């Protein structure tokens, strides 16, 4: 892993989705490689960061905002989306209602975050369906269709086994990088505010 302070771009990501779909578990798995020792319901927002290097040779620091999922909190959580350039929109493949909510979550993201926010749809808890196929209540294909219609990235994953978790973040970060890179090229504007204060050595990307 790269040193925390050695990065070229800082991306703000938000983790959203209904309560109990496993957002905090996904974050913990990604950041620490383990599940939380004493899981708690997230009130307000929790933060974590991880710096990763992309294939392109750039180091990006992901600043991840893990938000409360309960519907009642939406009035507050929308304040957390400001300046977010990426989102993991999580549902539970064993709970159709959590998938149904994705439409609303997506709309909230698009209206409160950066307009061309990159969203990765994540169907969590595949481990349950692997153990007992009857538990699956949301078809892979249905979710994939929804994602492609809405222009979302999509993966199924399991925070419990760790399957696809890193992949979800990697794909999301890469896509954000491509989007913002494209934007940078297009606008040819070095002060483009999509690049949130890339700091440290201020080295130019090797890419």
């Amino acid at each position, binding site marked *: 892993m790269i040193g925390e302070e050695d990065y070229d771009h*800082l991306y703000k990501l938000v983790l959203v989705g209904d*309560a*109990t779909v496993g957002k905090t578990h996904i974050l913990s798995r990604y950041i620490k490689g383990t599940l939380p*020792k*004493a*899981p*708690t*319901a*997230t*009130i*307000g*927002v*929790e*933060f974590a*960061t991880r710096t990763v290097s992309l294939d392109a040779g750039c180091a990006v*620091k992901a*600043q991840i905002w893990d938000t*409360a999922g*309960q519907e*009642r*909190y*939406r*009035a*507050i959580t*929308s*304040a*957390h989306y*400001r*300046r977010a350039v990426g989102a993991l929109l999580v549902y539970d493949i064993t709970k159709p*209602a959590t998938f149904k909510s994705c439409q609303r979550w997506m709309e*909230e993201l698009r209206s*409160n975050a950066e307009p061309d926010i990159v969203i990765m749809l994540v169907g969590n808890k595949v481990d349950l369906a692997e153990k007992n196929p009857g538990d699956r209540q949301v078809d892979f294909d249905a979710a994939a269709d929804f994602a492609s219609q809405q222009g979302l990235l999509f993966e199924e994953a399991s925070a419990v086994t760790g399957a696809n978790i890193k992949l979800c973040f990697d794909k999301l970060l890469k896509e954000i990088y491509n989007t913002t890179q494209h934007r940078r090229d297009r606008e040819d504007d070095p002060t483009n505010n999509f690049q*949130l*204060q890339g*700091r440290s050595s201020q080295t130019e990307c090797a890419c």
Partner: protein
Amino acid sequence: MASERTVSRAIFRLPWDDCGMGDSEKVHTAQEEEASTAEFARQCARTWPDLLCRGKPQEVAGITETVAVNEADAHTIKVDVLRTRGAHPAFSAPEMRERLQELLTEFCIAEGVRYMQGLHEVAAVFAYIEAAGGGFHSGKPQCPTTLECFQMFTQNFMPCFCDGEGFVILHITLLFFRQLLLYHLPHLHNQLEEAGVAPVVYATPWFITLFAYKTPLQVLLRLWHRYIRRGDPTFVPFLAVAVMELEKQAFLDAEEDDLNFAVDRTTITSVEKLQDVWTAAESLHAKTPKSFSFRMSRIIAQVREQLRKKGSGHPWADSVLARAEQERRLVVLAREVLAQFVRASDPALLDSVQAVPSGQLPSLRLLLLDVRPRAAYEAEHLPHALHFHPPSLQRLAQVSAGMNRPRAERLAAALSNAITEVGGLVGARKEAPEVKAADSSSDIGETAALGAEVFQELQAAASEAWGEGWISESESAHLAVLGGEADWDSSQLCKTDGGGVVAALFEALTGQVSLPRVSVVLGGAAALQREAEKRGVKLESSSAGSPWKSESAGYPGNVRGMLSGAFKSLRQRAQQAQQGIAQQIQPKSPDAT
């Protein structure tokens, strides 16, 4: 079961009453800590029922049609119970989990509310105390049940939990918190604001769970015990600012990108830290105009009343919030200004203008800055008020009014974003001004230069009138800005573009110079005149043409001279008025401790 002996002990006085509930005790091992927490919980079980019932009868919840919680809520409760204080051994016991689930379900039914995450953290405390103490006990014949204690606590001490669906009270509480932070720690406030670190992000869990979220149980029990004993829900913002104050250096040192993380990590981690936080909060409380708590408690009481009557979807909520949004400035009530003024001249008269709802009016060195045009000042003013209306200030106000007030606007926009989605509150909020991407940088530069110029002039004038150290930390002076007709609209909102200078001066002093303890007199000179008339205090007029700098020269003598003739009749009027005033301003606030 509590023995009779312990119960009677609780009625009179407990040994830990005077020693901070054993806060100083040192615990070493996890087992010892758990034993000490359980012992403390037993003490809470004996004392809380009476403390919670004190003063206020339990409010009767409105008519509720809920007979069961809905399926989604039931599921969330079930999952939340499993993840409540997972690190604490008591909460892994199946009977504790069962009880917690029952308590939460019963609470939602009894209160007729939907389950809200965070409530489980609050309920956990009551379930724990119940288990440790074998139930709650009271010296009175009818002891409330655990559920009733839990309900009374949320009703009387957790204003943000009686918030309906709209989070109106939470937003108002956050606004008051922000005012207080700006008042005492302007540097920190401004740094957080510039980094986009909003109170709604980091302070929401503090207010929604009353610090239950992430505070170790042994600390939380002691915190709540002190808080319940103190009996004043408006103390919570002081605790929150105290928490911030203790971590101030870490925040100021943090990189901008990491500031959100740094603030979010802030909690009261140990009993020792609790002591520090509490002491700091009390000190802040003593250094804050009483108007702050008074207004906060009054506004929250009004909002709760409206919520009960109309529900949060009613348009009134929108206007309350729109109004609250504009109250970025900590205001002092005219009657508190007058009371401090009388205190400085003849403390014996203080009772006649007591501004406080109850308890003691803190003695503040209140410096009154009269920023009205000279003619208005000369017609009538408080004798020791310093007149300040230089051309630079007028220019500053003009430029600020025209340039979109970036800082205030940004805050308003951030808040609007948060509020936009509130059920029933959409509409007007949607039209809230968006932050303009690029303010004219020349305007910003001009404002900064003008702000500096204004401050220099103020510094010179104030030093001459109030002494060189008027601004120093050790003097702890409070600067109250008094505006006039151009500053206040008919609904007592401070105008930012009506030709007044209050808003621009406040912004320059707090935002640009980060001057602490700056407030605005609510309603301005008109309110002060009304108060003075009501209390029989005569305002002074000065001959036209006298330079404002010299007017304040002899202020103590001036005050005495002005008042001496009026003292006799004032005393009589004061005595007559006192009872009436006391009734008028003694609110339902449980401020007395």
